[in-house]
C-alpha cells in the first residue's frame, strides 16, 4: 500500500529525512521509532500527502478519503462543539449515515455527554479522544497515527488499545512512537529513523 524509495525532505538547510525506504503492505501494522527530531512526524506527513518530498519516490495506493491522520495537534476547531466538528468532517468525507456514526463514536470514546460543549472547554485527554473520533469517522483504510498515546489519559489509552486490536489486520497502520513497547505486540514491521 505504501512504497517509498530514497525518500528525503529538507526544510531550508536542515535535512530532516534522508534516504528512507519504506514498504507497508495492505493490512500491515508498521511502527516507526526514533528519538525526537528524527523526522517521524515529517515521514508521516509525507505519506499522508500534506507535504511533498524534496527527493526520492513515494507511492501511496490509497485515495485521500480513505486516509486518516492523527497528528500532534488534534486538528479540531476549539470554538466549535464536538458535534459540530464531527459534523464538518463527516460532510467533508461524505460519511454515510453520518449522524449515527458520529453518535456511535462519541459514545464509544466517552464524549457523548460533552458533545454540545465547545472543545475549548475540554481537557487534553478529552480533546485527544475527540481527535481519535475524527480519525475514525470516515472508516479509513490507512491509519497514520503520530505518537497517539502521548496526549491520552488512561481511559483514552485503553479505548485506543481496544480500537487498535479490533482493527488490526483489517486496516493498514503506520504508527510512530518513541515508546515502542506499547505497540510492539501488534506490529508486523518496524522502521527505525
Amino acid at each position: 500500500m505504501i512504497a517509498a524509495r530514497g525518500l528525503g525532505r529538507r526544510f531550508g538547510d536542515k535535512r530532516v529525512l534522508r534516504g528512507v525506504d519504506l514498504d507497508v503492505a495492505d493490512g500491515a501494522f508498521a511502527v516507526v521509532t526514533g528519538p525526537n527530531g528524527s523526522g517521524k512526524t515529517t515521514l508521516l506527513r509525507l505519506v499522508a500527502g500534506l507535504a511533498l518530498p524534496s527527493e526520492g519516490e513515494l507511492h501511496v495506493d490509497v485515495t485521500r478519503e480513505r486516509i486518516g491522520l492523527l497528528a500532534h495537534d488534534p486538528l479540531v476547531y476549539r470554538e466549535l462543539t464536538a458535534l459540530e466538528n464531527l459534523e464538518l468532517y463527516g460532510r467533508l468525507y461524505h460519511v454515510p449515515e453520518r449522524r449515527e456514526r458520529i453518535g456511535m463514536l462519541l459514545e464509544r470514546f466517552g464524549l457523548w455527554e460533552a458533545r454540545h460543549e465547545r472543545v475549548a472547554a475540554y481537557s487534553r485527554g478529552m480533546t485527544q479522544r475527540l481527535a481519535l473520533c475524527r480519525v475514525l469517522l470516515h472508516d479509513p483504510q490507512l491509519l497514520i497515527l503520530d505518537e497517539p498515546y502521548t496526549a491520552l489519559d488512561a481511559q483514552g489509552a485503553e479505548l485506543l488499545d481496544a480500537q487498535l486490536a479490533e482493527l488490526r489486520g483489517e486496516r493498514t497502520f503506520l504508527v510512530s512512537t518513541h515508546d515502542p513497547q506499547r505497540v510492539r505486540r501488534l506490529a508486523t514491521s518496524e522502521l527505525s529513523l
Partner: protein
Amino acid sequence: MRRIPLPVLATASLVLVTLALALVFFVAPNDADQGFSQRIFYFHVSIAFTAYLCFGAGAWKALRHLWKRDPRADLESYVAVHQGVIFGVLVLLTGSIWAKISWGHWWVWSENQLVLFLVLFLFYAAYFMLRFSVDPGPQRANLSAVYALFGVVLVPVSFLAIRLSQSLIHPQVFTRHGPNFGGWILAAYIVSQVAVLVLAYTLYRVELAGKLLDVRLRELRLA
C-alpha cells in the same frame, strides 16, 4: 540559446551597448521640441520593453515549473523576475529623468507606463519578500511560480485600469511627441533595443549561473 557561451554574450553586450550609445548620442538627429536631452527616451523605451519581456519569461518559466515539473524552471523564473525588477527600476529612473526634462517634474502621474511600473515594482517587491520568507523547497518554488503568474496577469489589468484612471485624475494636460520614425532615429531605436535585450540576457545568464552554483554547493554540503 543556452549554448551561447557567456564570454561571447558579454562581448556582444559591450559592443552593442557602445554602438547604441554612439548612435543615440552622436548620430541620431535632435528631437524637434526637446533637443538633446530627449535622447534618454531611446533607452527608456528599450528598457521598458525588456522589463516586460523579463516578467513574461518569468511567468513562462513559472508555468513550466507548475505544469511540467521542470527542475530548473523555478530558479530560471526567479532570476528572470529579478532581472525584470532591475530593469523596472531603471525604467522608473530613466522615466523620472525624462519627465524632469520634458515637464520639469521628477514624477508625473500622467505617464501611464511610469505609473504601471510603479505598481509592478510594488507587486514584485512583495514577490521577493514572499520568496525570502519561505524556506527553500517545493512549496517556495510553487508559491513563487503562482505569484509570477499573478504578476503577469496584473500587467495588462493594471495598464487598463491606469488608462481608465487618467480621465479621473486630471485631464491630459501634457502631450508627448513621439519620435518620428525615420532614418537614423529608427536605427538608433533598434540598436538600443537589441543592446538592452542582449545585456539583459547576459545578466540573466550570469545570475542564473551564480544561483545554480549556490544550489549545487548547498547540495554538496548537505550530502
